[in-house]
Structures are given as structure tokens and as C-alpha cells.
């Protein structure tokens, strides 16, 4: 919500709102239809089974248990992210915590650890017979609490997704007007009262936005629950799609249920967003910092504990594997990395190309159709990768057998999933281009395409590049669709990690896992640079 408000404001600032040409609308519509194909395919497939059959499956199978498990997980992850992310944001923005800049970076960093690598390392460190159990055994500790199941899954997801809440809350805290707090204070409110009556309502939209991201992530993540052996939708869909003796239509039923939950979460978020009519003041004045006094010690202990768990454990375990593995650490073949690179570049190129008409149209038009195409391209973002994978398996085996398990289909899956990232960055850079410049080029005799190429494109190039980089980096890390759609013999870093994890040869996973953490770190740099670019 906040984003679209900002866009509206930018649009006003940019000036007139001439409706763009029909051809752009048609192009944007075509892209939206194209990337909505998997969803359509899934619905078609589900309708083939018949409503009665699917409804019967609801009660016959354990799908309601899976629903309950997923909801419980989302609840705890969202709550945990808020409980960690919000205090960290307040501490780093509004208090005199020593080393605030350092803690800010450290608190955001866990986002660079792909959650399945986090889960993998946690299971290795804290599992029964894990490294920690081994280390504690001489000290007389016989059993450590089991890491598998709900609490392990929730713990790992919280540790690697709380930065969403941290970052959005931080942004909200930074942008709100400190004079309001001072005003409240002069009206004799205590610090706590002022925080509750002024700060909380101001940052609530930011917290909600972060919580939404965390909730959607918890719903869509496949690797963590699989490794932590907790039965949720994504993990069950993956297993059910390829196990012996599963009732027909069960994976499709699970997918539909999962999408329904995603829809409910999105609807809830938009209601909360709409209900928020708080006064937005863009003052740059910061409120007076809260003095922590002796509380700075527990505060720093809190920051450090989160950092040790979310950064120290995974990086420590990876380094330990690396050291332990000896020569086996170099077991994997370079072609594996090359394959990852190829599909990620292809996905980035295709996504940027497709993003241009959608973003251009969305930025220049306020019509209903423009909103619709814009929203449709976001469908893939809300649909978990495992569902996109399942839908594309259906579509290809039913209608386009020649595409089944081919690289183009795999790239298409990535584009469906990550196009919104490209659309988002391209759209905001298009909004910053004064349409009068294009008009000037047109009056000087350029064709619409020529004007775009000569005037608009050079101006939005940095935004397009940033969008492409984001798609590239997220594709490198994508897990479930990669596992489901990869052609025979086509191994990527991700599928290789998954394979050696299953075989228990952790040492061989060390290098590819470290590469992926590095790649994720780069994507953070791109995101941060892009935010600066947006002003």
C-alpha cells in the first residue's frame, strides 16, 4: 500500500498522465497472460478431478492436518519475526545502543543465508548425533532437545526471515517525524506512553509489511520444513507428487489449499493497510534518542545472541565442513556452477525483457487494465515455487510434451516466480523519467520505439540492470522448481547441494553452499543500492 501511494505521489510530481499507446497495453497484457499460465494450468488440472473427488480427499487424507501444521508454523514464524525484528529496529534507530551501525548491518545479514542452507547447518549442528551433541558429550550432556519438527522449523525460519520485519520497521522508524514524539512528550506523556500512542501507530504499516513478507515466506518455503521433517503444504506437495500409492489429485488439492491460504494472507494484509489512515509526515527530524543506561548490556546481549544463532551457526558449520572435508570439498564439477550461471542469466534476460512493457504500462497508465496486468505479473511471486513446479509439470505432460523437463521450461518457471522483482525496479525507474522528454523526442520525429530506445532506455538502464541482477541472484538460489523441472544430467549448485545432503556427504556441500551464501550477499548489495537509487 505504501508503495502504491508513493508511486501515486511520484506520478503527480512527474506531471501529466497521458495514456500510453494501445500496443504497449497489448504487450503488457500478453506478458501477464503468459506468466499466469501455470496458475491456469493448475486450476484446469484440479477441475479435471472434479470438485466432489477433491472435497472427498479433504477428509480422507491428512490434508487438513497439513493445513493445520502450515497455519501453526506461519503463526509462530510471523510472531517470532516481529518479536525479534521490531526490538532490533527500535534499538538500532531510536536508542543510544553502542555500535548501532554495526548491529544494523549484522541484523540485516541473515537474509543472505538461503533458509535451506540455514536448516541444513542447524540440523547438522543441533540434530541428534549432531556436531553440538558430539561436542557436549564429554561434558556429560547426554541429550539435547530435538531440533526436528515444528520448533526446529519455526526456529530456523524465524532466524532467517526476521530481517524482513527488521528492515521494513527500520524504514518506517527512519521516515517518521520525530517532532511528533516530542509533541507528545510536551503534552506530559511518558516515554512509554509516547511510544505507544505515537510511535506504534506510525510504524505499524512497516511492521505489517515485514510480517506479511515473513508469513508468505514461511508458507512458501520448501527446503526448511523438508530438512526439519515438518509436514507442511510445500513439503507434502513435493513428496505426494512422486510417492507410491498417493490418491489421484492429492498434490493438486494441497496446492489449491495452499493458494487459498496465500490469498487469505494477502487479503488480510490489504485490509490492515487500508484501515491505516494515520497521518504520514515526512519530517526528517529524528526524535531524541532513548538513553538505555544499564539496559544497554541486555540489549547488546540480545543483538549478539540473534547474530550468533543466525550468522555464527550457519557460517561456522559451513567453515567446519570445509575444513573437515579435505579433498572431498572439491568433489563437485565446475559444470554444475556453469549450469546455475546459464539458467540464471537466461532468467534474468527474459524477465527484464518481459518487465519492460509491463512496467512501462503500469507506470504510465492508471487504467483498470493496467492495474490488472500489473497485479497478474505478481501472481508468480505469491505462488510458492513448488506449486509453480507442479503446475508446469502438469502443463508440459498434458499439452507440450516436447518442453517437459527442458531448460526453457525451467527458465520459464524462474521467470514466473521472479518477474515481479524486475517489474518493480523497472517501474520505479520509469516513473522517474519525465514523460516530457519522450514527447520532445516524438515531436522531433522519432517513432515511439525510437523515442523509447534513444531517450527512455538510457535513463532507466540502471533500474533494468538492478532488476536483472535481482532475478539472476534469486534464480541461483531457487530450490523446489529446480528440483522438479531440471532435465536429466542437468545439475545446478542447488540440486547438487540437495543431492549430497541426502547422501550425507556434507563436506561436498561446503563450497556450493558458501557460493550460494556469497551470491545472496550480492543480492543484498543490489537491493540496498537500488533503494538508494530510488531516493
Amino acid at each position, binding site marked *: 500500500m505504501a508503495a502504491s501511494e508513493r508511486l501515486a505521489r511520484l506520478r503527480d510530481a512527474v506531471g501529466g498522465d497521458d495514456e500510453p499507446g494501445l500496443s504497449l497495453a497489448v504487450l503488457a497484457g500478453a506478458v501477464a497472460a503468459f506468466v499466469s499460465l501455470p496458475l491456469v494450468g493448475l486450476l484446469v488440472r484440479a477441475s479435471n478431478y472434479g470438485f466432489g473427488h477433491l472435497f472427498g480427499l479433504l477428509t480422507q487424507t491428512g490434508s487438513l492436518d497439513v493445513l493445520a501444521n502450515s497455519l501453526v508454523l506461519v503463526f509462530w514464524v510471523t510472531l517470532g519475526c516481529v518479536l525479534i525484528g521490531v526490538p532490533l529496529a527500535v534499538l538500532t534507530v531510536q536508542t543510544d545502543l553502542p555500535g548501532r551501525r554495526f548491529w544494523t548491518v549484522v541484523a540485516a545479514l541473515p537474509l543472505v543465508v538461503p533458509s535451506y542452507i540455514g536448516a541444513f547447518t542447524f540440523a547438522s549442528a543441533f*540434530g*541428534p*548425533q549432531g556436531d553440538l551433541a558430539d561436542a557436549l558429550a564429554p561434558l556429560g550432556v547426554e541429550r539435547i532437545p530435538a531440533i526436528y519438527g515444528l520448533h526446529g522449523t519455526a526456529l530456523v525460519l524465524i532466524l532467517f526471515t526476521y530481517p524482513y520485519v527488521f528492515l521494513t520497521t527500520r524504514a518506517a522508524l527512519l521516515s517518521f517525524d520525530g517532532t511528533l514524539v516530542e509533541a507528545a512528550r510536551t503534552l506530559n506523556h511518558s516515554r512509554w506512553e509516547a511510544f505507544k500512542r505515537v510511535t506504534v501507530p506510525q510504524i505499524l504499516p512497516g511492521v505489517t509489511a515485514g510480517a506479511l513478507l515473513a508469513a508468505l515466506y514461511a508458507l512458501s518455503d520448501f527446503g526448511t520444513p523438508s530438512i526439519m521433517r515438518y509436514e507442511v503444504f510445500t513439503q507434502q506437495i513435493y*513428496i505426494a507428487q*512422486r*510417492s*507410491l*500409492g498417493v490418491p489421484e489429485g492429492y498434490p493438486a488439492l494441497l496446492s489449491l489449499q495452499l493458494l487459498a491460504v496465500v490469498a487469505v494472507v494477502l487479503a488480510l494484509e490489504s485490509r490492515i493497510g487500508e484501515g491505516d489512515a494515520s497521518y504520514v509526515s515526512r519530517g526528517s527530524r529524528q526524535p531524541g534518542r532513548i538513553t538505555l543506561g544499564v539496559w544497554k548490556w541486555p540489549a547488546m546481549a540480545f543483538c549478539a545472541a540473534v547474530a550468533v544463532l543466525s550468522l555464527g551457526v550457519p557460517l561456522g558449520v559451513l567453515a567446519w565442513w570445509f575444513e573437515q572435508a579435505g*579433498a572431498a570439498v572439491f*568433489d563437485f564439477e565446475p559444470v554444475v556452477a556453469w549450469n546455475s550461471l546459464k539458467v540464471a542469466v537466461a532468467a534474468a534476460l527474459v524477465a527484464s525483457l518481459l518487465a519492460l512493457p509491463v512496467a512501462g504500462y503500469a507506470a504510465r497508465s492508471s487504467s483498470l487494465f493496467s492495474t490488472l496486468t500489473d497485479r497478474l505479473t505478481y501472481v508468480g511471486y505469491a505462488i510458492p515455487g513448488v506449486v509453480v513446479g507442479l503446475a508446469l509439470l502438469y502443463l*508440459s*505432460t*498434458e499439452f507440450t*510434451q516436447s518442453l*517437459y*523437463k527442458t531448460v526453457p521450461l525451467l527458465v520459464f518457471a524462474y521467470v514466473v516466480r521472479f518477474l515481479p522483482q524486475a517489474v518493480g525496479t523497472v517501474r520505479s525507474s520509469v516513473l522517474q523519467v519525465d514523460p516530457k522528454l519522450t514527447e520532445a523526442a516524438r515531436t522531433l520525429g522519432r517513432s515511439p520505439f525510437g523515442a523509447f530506445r534513444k531517450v527512455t532506455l538510457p535513463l532507466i538502464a540502471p533500474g533494468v540492470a538492478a532488476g536483472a541482477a535481482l532475478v539472476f541472484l534469486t534464480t541461483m538460489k531457487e530450490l523446489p522448481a529446480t528440483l522438479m523441472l*531440471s*532435465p*536429466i*544430467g*542437468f545439475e545446478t549448485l542447488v540440486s547438487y547441494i540437495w*543431492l549430497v545432503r*541426502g*547422501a*550425507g*556427504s556434507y563436506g561436498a556441500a561446503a563450497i556450493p553452499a558458501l557460493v550460494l551464501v556469497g551470491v545472496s550477499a550480492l543480492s543484498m548489495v543490489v537491493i540496498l543500492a537500488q533503494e538508494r537509487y530510488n531516493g
Partner: protein
Amino acid sequence: MRERQSQTRRRFLAAAGVASTTALAGCSGILGSGGSDSDDRPTLADFRGSGEIVSDRPVPGGTSIEDLPDLEGELSIYLGGGEGGRYTTLIDLLDQYYDGFTASTQTQPSSQLANVIVDEYESGTTQADVFWSVDAGSLAYVAENGATLELSSNARSMVGDDRFVTDQWAGVAGRSRAVPYNTNQFSADEIPTSVDEIATADRFTESIGWAPTYGAFHGFVTAMRQLRGDDGTREWLNNMLEQNPARYGSEYAAVSQGIANGEVGLGLTNHYYPILVFANSPDAPLDLAFTENDAGAFVNTAGASVLDGASDADLADLFVRHLLSAEAQEFLATRGFAFPMIDGVEPVGPLPTIEELSPPELDLQSLSDVQPTIELLEDVGILS
């Protein structure tokens, strides 16, 4: 058997030393620096590596690769399981042996691949030429669903024992269930020859390790269901629960390791997992026993079949014959500690031959019936 067992430990140690050196030899061979031959073709030594126990072994009998027609062309292989990369190492050796042959693989758990193969067959999108799987149950499942082609008699006749071959698939590497135990906690005399005694004798209470979520364990319970019915199996499982066994996630990294560490006294695993533990810790107080005539000693096999819809079915069939060649069988015996499937190749030193074991009579086709096993395990409360 008993006398034999008491000697096995020392000999396993030797075998374990071999396992690590052959692995290195294999690597350098693949990189082309190990072979002294001018044409860089892997030799028998590359297939089985070198070492004390291997140097005692005679040149394997059976059909040598040299006597088989050349592999020529591209082959896609679905690898169900894959034994921690051993199977891909063998494929790499064959790849290297023939200039005109390349193979690409995809590895997934065997039961999952079986389902993928059947789905692909039914939608006309068959991807692979060969299904090479670690268990006969998944091979049988694929064959029962019509997704395989008949093997040539040339391929079938290579398998020495009728129990391990059908029209549709051929066994390439035997694996027995076994009872590894900690030699500090139990002597060889104390290990019973029946899984029932393990489930009932007081001396095993609180000292058994098992991995009830593991595929190999599901195969074992499926075998037991075929042998004594669901009720008899349920009774055995309930008796086992009374013994309060320690629960592990895998039979290799966990159960066998747990026995070696002394966390538990004995366990139920496939026969080669404890041997793999020796490879990492040669001093482990670990030995291996086999029960007699029950599911605790049933012998399963890894095997291969040619898929209906294969782009080159003849090449696929010839590949299966290569898996049954003297060199490949030697590889599987010395590096995977498997029971060879052809006459003329013996299991590695310390292991008995299949003939010396007393496995139960069991149709391996029946191992595809895994779903009722899962339901039974859930019902008894072992799987949630």
C-alpha cells in the same frame, strides 16, 4: 559361521583401508593422471583399485568389458539411490572407457523415481533410457506398470541366480540385511540367529538402534510382511517397541555410527553400512552378524531395467550388460561391498557368499508393496 564371524573384524579393517585408497585411485584415474596405459582406458585396477585385500583377489571370471560390444552414443540414466556417488563413479569409468559414449544421470530416492518414471511413461514423456535402482521393489513397481522393455537374453543370462533376475530387470548388486553389533557390549555368541530373539530377549532392552524412517528399513519390514503376514509383523514391531530401541535417521551415518560409538549395542541395517563405518574409523569396536531364514537376513538387490520409450533401447540393454561385466561387478564388490550377481566374482574377503547366508525364500517382486508397510508403521505408532 561363528568362527568365521570372530575373524571378520580384522579383515574388515583391511577392507576399509582398501576402500579409502581405491576411492583416491579412482579419482586420479578419472582425471587421467592415474592410468599408465597410453590410451588412458581404465584398467581392472581402476575398477577395483589397489590394496592388500584386492591384490589377493583373482582376476574376476565372467564376461569382461573387452568381450562386450562397444557402448556408443548417449544414454540417460535415472539413478534411484546411488550409494553416495559410487554408482556415478562406475558410470564415469565406463564413460571414460569408451570415447563414443556419454551418460547423463539424475539421482533421486528410488521410490520417487519409480513414480516419476510411471508418470512419464503414461504421458508419453519418458526421459531416461535406463532405470538403475538400489532396490528391487521400485524396479518391480515400474515393470508392473508396463514402463519397461523386456531385457535381452544376453543380459538376463549373465545373472547367476534366478532369484535376482526377471524378464524386465536384472539384479546387479546384492545387499543383505544384517545385525551389526558393538564388540565391547556383546560377544559373537550372544547375537541370535533370529530377529524374534532380538525383539524379545532381555539382554537387548535399551540397546537396539534402528532407523524406522529409512527406505532400507521399509524394505525389511515389507519383506517381513510377505514372510509372516501383517499380524505377525505387527507383533514383532510391538515387541521391538517394548525393547525401547533408539531411533536414528539413517542406517549408515547414524545406526552404524551409534553402534561403533557404543551408544547402542546392536542394530538392524543393510550389511554394507557398518563396513562403511570402518572406512572412517578403523578402530571401531564393530562386527557383523546375520540372522537365518527370516526378514533379518533377506537379500535384496540393486538392479537395472530398460525403459519403454527409451531413445536408444539397444544401447540401454548393452549398458545393463556392462553393469554385469566382470569389471563392473568387481567394482561393486570391492568398493560398494555388494554381493556380486555374476558367477566368477566373489564378495570382498570378510563377507560370506550369498550361498553361505541363509536368506528367506522371497519373491523380490513383492517388495513393491511398500504402502501397507508405511500404514502399518503409522498404525503401530512408529511413524507419525
